[in-house]
């Protein structure tokens, strides 16, 4: 990385702000933070952040106002809104104000990271092939091979593998899998997800020397080389 990615965190709840700072720094991001909306707006205008994370409920100026002000000043900094309310109206209000994404509390940190990466990737050309170690996924043909051996997957198995591969090297939670692969809440599908991870392992890991699907206990799964 030539330049460290800079992220602005504006969150008045100190415990949440602290863990965001700490977690993001551990991921190698440079983090500035403040608890106040006006302060956040000033910082966002003064520096070129790669992504800004705003809580919706802020003292001074709330998150939606800050985003509106930024956009009114032609500032295109990608913004993720945090909120304790996930009603559809709030989501619509947030996106209308000019936010790029929206995440409801309490969220898995892995999910916030995934959304951050998605925003940071923006503008880079979409890949047509995903390569993870010796695993090759042809997105157009929905074909999978490892070490030159073609692997047959069912539609669901493929969707799950593709989702893991798009986040290769990063933790994906079971909730994220439930929501993105099955479009459902995690609770109902937890057993189904376990079973499908086992299916995938049987097909893409068991016949080969090294394992690609790793379990991060208590957090989720990672697709990638090494532990």
């Amino acid at each position: 990385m030539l330049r460290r990615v800079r992220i602005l965190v504006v969150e008045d709840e100190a415990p949440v702000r602290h863990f965001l700072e700490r977690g993001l720094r551990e991921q190698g991001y440079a983090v500035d933070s403040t608890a106040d909306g006006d302060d956040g707006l000033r910082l966002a205008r003064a520096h070129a952040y790669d992504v800004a994370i705003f809580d919706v409920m802020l003292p001074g100026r709330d998150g939606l106002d800050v985003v509106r002000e930024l956009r009114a000043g032609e500032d295109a900094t990608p913004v993720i809104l945090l909120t304790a309310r996930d009603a559809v109206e709030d989501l619509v209000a947030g996106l209308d104000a000019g936010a790029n994404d929206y995440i409801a509390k309490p969220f898995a940190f892995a999910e916030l990271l995934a959304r951050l990466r998605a925003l940071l990737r923006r503008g880079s050309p979409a890949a047509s092939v995903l390569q993870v170690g010796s695993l090759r996924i042809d997105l157009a043909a929905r074909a999978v091979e490892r070490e030159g051996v073609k692997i047959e997957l069912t539609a669901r198995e493929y969707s799950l593998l593709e989702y893991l591969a798009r986040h290769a090297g990063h933790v994906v939670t079971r909730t994220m899998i439930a929501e993105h692969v099955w479009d459902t809440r995690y609770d109902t599908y937890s057993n189904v997800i376990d079973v499908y991870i086992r299916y995938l392992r049987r097909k893409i890991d068991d016949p080969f020397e090294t394992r690609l699907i790793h379990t991060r206990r208590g957090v989720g799964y990672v697709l990638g080389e090494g532990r």
Partner: protein
Amino acid sequence: MIRTIRVRIGLAVFAVTVALLIAQGSWMLSRFERAGRDEVDAFLTAELSEMALLEGTPQLEALIRAETARRHRTDEMFFEIREPSGALILASENLPEAGLGPFRGEGPSPVFWEEPDPRSDEGHRHIRVADAVAEGRRFRVAQSLLGQQKGYWEFREDLLVALAIVASVAGAMAWLVATRALSPVGRMIDRARDLEHEPRGLLPRTGKGDELDRLADVLNRLLTGLREQVERTRRLSADASHALRTPLTSVRGNLELLATERPDSEPVQEALAQVHRLDRMVSGLLALERLAEHGFAGEPAPVDLGAVVDEIAGDFRGVALERGIELHASADDVVVLGHEGRLREAIANLVTNALRHTGSGGTVRIEAARDGGRARVSVHDDGPGFDPADAERLFERFYSIGASGTGTGLGLAITRATARAHGGDAFATSDAAGSTFTIELPLSGPPGQPDRVGPMLTSRCAP
């Protein structure tokens, strides 16, 4: 029917009227009888005096003959005059052979009594007898009471007819008045029944300021108070769920960071698992709250429940297989309007529930079918079933929460709330063959007109 107030009032007024009329009738009848008796006695006394006056003259015999001859059976008269020794001096021709019994009068003032007519078998014909002693002779005059009794019977019959008419009319009037007076109560009952589905409706007032108005006012105040109470409780639970989210975010985030650093720490893993569970409970409660308040999110679109059921069966086949349970699905073309993701979740909750309560070697069957004008998705298992008395409680929040410490106890509640948000409902039945959980939803189009749904589906699937 007999228990309704207006019938009871009608019957009560009828009964009271009957009792009053019987009392009054009895009094009138006894007065009537006594007046008749007094009249006869006065007449007999006069006859006795005349007999005593004419005793020994030929006019007496003429008088007796004339009186006997001009009367009929109903007021027939008898005359008898004897020596104190009992020897007959004079008697009317119609006097029965056996006479009218021994003389009772001992002095000049007459003694009266009644004697059954010896010529009558019927027994209820009586003769009024008057005896007196004058100038050493015994005088007796008697008259049949048949005419009197006939009058009495007719009067009694008239009274009974009047009683029946008056009591019936009084009862009917009472019923009518009660019906009129109670008609606002009927409207109140109908209205109260509707109120179950009207979150803001109130009971009607008559506007007359009477007891029913006061009842309506009191009940309306009670209703409003209860609604406010329920609303406060509901808001409290929603606010609590919201308020919990920020601290949960911090606890969860920090624990996840900790778990990354120390993946093998059991306490951290255990705490994390429970925080995740707490998180799912809070999200589930908020989802329930939203479903109850706003219905499902977004515009309703046609959802092919048959396809959804096939998909769910595919997803869960592996889970069932690993537990030694057979999973069958049979799905007709059933299209409803709604949110596909929410409906998939509602049905999958039932499948998860069925798999949890079925042992190895059991069978779970998922069916999607039309039933009349409704779409019906049912999940049947051949597990031990449940007590039918619990059928409703199964759908309550946290009722089915297991001691295992992994579930949220909200699955079935979410299923029901989802079904209701789609204009349907969810219910459960249990018998010896296992339990069946069913979701019933309105079909998207009128039955028998699937064409109306077809084009919508294609347009939705088009890019």
